[in-house]
């Protein structure tokens, strides 16, 4: 359903995203994981045409076979409200502080459906109830600052699913929320995706969260996809050294903790993500990795069996006997 090929996002003379291939099947849920500065949000926003205006995007992004790059702004806007929903990290900032909540949800309906104000209002109440907000009839008359963080994020989700999109992009939807309401939002996203057969691109820095939500995972570093595959396969048998380090750095989350971190403290990844434009050539993780081999100075090849692929010259040993370092 979503097919990305040779996606490149540049800001000035710096390339912030370089993805040769990323696909998401209809109704699938994929987590896009990485540290700050890995390019994951930029990738997600580029799909929706919401990248910063300083950025230039090239390559190919197809949604249900339709090429999105190169669409004129009005056509892209139409795609956004109908086939594509987006929710953002900070629900308070993503809502207009001077507009009643109901009107903001209703706007998403009325932009794409010729319905009366009253019908839109009824649909809004329905939608809000659907995303688990009690007393939706009263909430529609409220302003964003009068709602709780969890309520606001539910309002944004209601807005995003108003026109039953085939793909929902969620950019760190729980990061700004209290821990106590995070799980509710995650459950809602999974539920909506399952019920409506809606694809979900879930952007997060938190492997533990991604694991509970999505079926596949793509790990980004330095604008590249380091490793991608089914979520259990990637987390239990990470092959890329960066994925391995990322998992090791994740704090254990009770039963969600991967076996790789049982019995040991979580580690930190040495150094910090380099500033833009100062990623080393070849493998971008070079310099922070600790498992470097001379080949790392060259771009690592795409490796791996089946759906689980990675780009690393010196991958971790696979758990099974099968040693596969075939170059595509």
């Amino acid at each position: 359903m979503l097919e990305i090929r040779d996606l490149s996002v540049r800001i000035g003379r710096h390339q912030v995203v370089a993805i040769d291939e990323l696909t998401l099947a209809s109704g699938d849920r994929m987590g896009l994981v990485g540290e700050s500065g890995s390019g994951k949000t930029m990738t997600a926003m580029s799909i929706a045409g919401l990248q910063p205006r300083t950025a230039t995007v090239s390559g190919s992004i197809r949604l249900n076979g339709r090429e999105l790059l190169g669409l004129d702004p009005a056509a892209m806007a139409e795609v956004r409200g109908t086939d594509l929903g987006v929710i953002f990290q900070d629900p308070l900032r993503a809502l207009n502080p001077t507009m009643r909540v109901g009107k903001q949800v209703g706007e998403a309906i009325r932009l794409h459906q010729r319905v009366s104000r009253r019908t839109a209002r009824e649909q809004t109440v329905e939608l809000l109830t659907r995303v688990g907000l009690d007393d939706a009839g009263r909430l529609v008359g409220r302003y964003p600052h009068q709602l709780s963080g969890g309520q606001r994020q539910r309002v944004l989700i209601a807005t995003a699913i108003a026109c039953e999109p085939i793909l929902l992009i969620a950019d760190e939807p729980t990061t700004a929320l209290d821990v106590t309401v995070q799980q509710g939002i995650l459950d809602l996203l999974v539920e909506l995706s399952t019920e409506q057969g809606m694809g979900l691109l879930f952007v997060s820095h938190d492997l533990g969260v991604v694991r509970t939500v999505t079926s596949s995972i793509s790990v980004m570093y330095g604008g590249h996809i380091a490793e991608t595959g089914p979520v259990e396969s990637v987390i239990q048998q990470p092959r890329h050294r960066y994925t391995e380090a990322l998992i090791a750095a994740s704090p254990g989350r009770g039963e969600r903790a991967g076996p790789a971190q049982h019995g040991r403290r979580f580690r930190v990844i040495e150094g910090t993500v380099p500033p833009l434009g100062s990623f080393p050539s070849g493998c971008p993780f070079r310099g922070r990795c600790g498992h470097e081999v001379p080949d790392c100075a060259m771009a690592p090849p795409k490796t791996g069996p089946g759906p689980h692929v990675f780009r690393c010259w010196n991958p971790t040993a696979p758990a099974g006997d099968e040693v596969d370092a075939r170059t595509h």
Partner: protein
Amino acid sequence: MGRIALRSFAVLLGSALVGSLLVFGLLRLLRGDIAWVIAGQDAPVEAVQELRDELGLDRPWFVQYVDWLGGLVRGDLGQSYASGYDIAEQIRIRMGLTLSLAVLSLLLSLAFAIAVGTYAALHSGDGRGRALDLTAQLGISIPTFWIGMLLISFISIRMGWLPAGGYVSWREDPVGAIRSLILPVLTLSVHLGAVLTRYVRSAMLDILNEDYIRSAMAKGRTFGSAVATHGIRNGAVPVLTVGVLALGSLLTGVAVVEVVFSLPGLGRMLLDAVLSREVIVVQSLVFIFILMILVLNFLMDLAYGLLDPRIRDKRSVA
């Protein structure tokens, strides 16, 4: 909202009272005996005493103050000492012209500022934006009265297109009234328009990067339509906050422009009173000017609450 409006109104009344006391006090504190100021230093003692009796300047100050306040409320402010006109009546006659000048130039400046300021914000990084910003700074730097003089020199004297001054009332000759107001309103709008343009630009720069603009786009709006539907109202709040400060200079600008274009408004009247040392007239007129500023402030204050529900809620809690 009603309670908040009531409180704003109470603040307005309080500020007006403080303002009246300040004007009244300042005019008396600086010179002990204003009878001498009015009559002139070399006036005969008897004439000064006569003036004192006539204006009741021998009474205790608060009696005079209350008397003046009462007069303001009743609309009876006495007569001009030098020219003999009825002060309150003159104010009533001239008020309309001064207010039309102020309101018309405010509207023109705002319309200009919203359009140009938004454009400048959208292009703030490139040459066009920078050029507009410099032009705005230049507009702020040009003295208002000089713009008026230049317009008179070129448009009225050289080209003869519009009258160089004077005023015919709306009732007598509407076209003539408009013709006589065009240059003064243009003159006033240069400074205010430039000031407001910079405010709008800066408010818009903030708005353009707001997340709710992006989420409006996510609902299916283009950038421009998202800014138009969600940006303007949010941008209006900070513009109003600083715009209030420009109102005082707008009103004094009106006074100066009335002098340049020989328009019979309150500003001309005030200046004449100042130059002929008519303390009583100055006192009432300055208060009227302060009152106009305070009323505009009050209206802006109400506007914030209407525009931003967060301010409304914060106030009703406080």
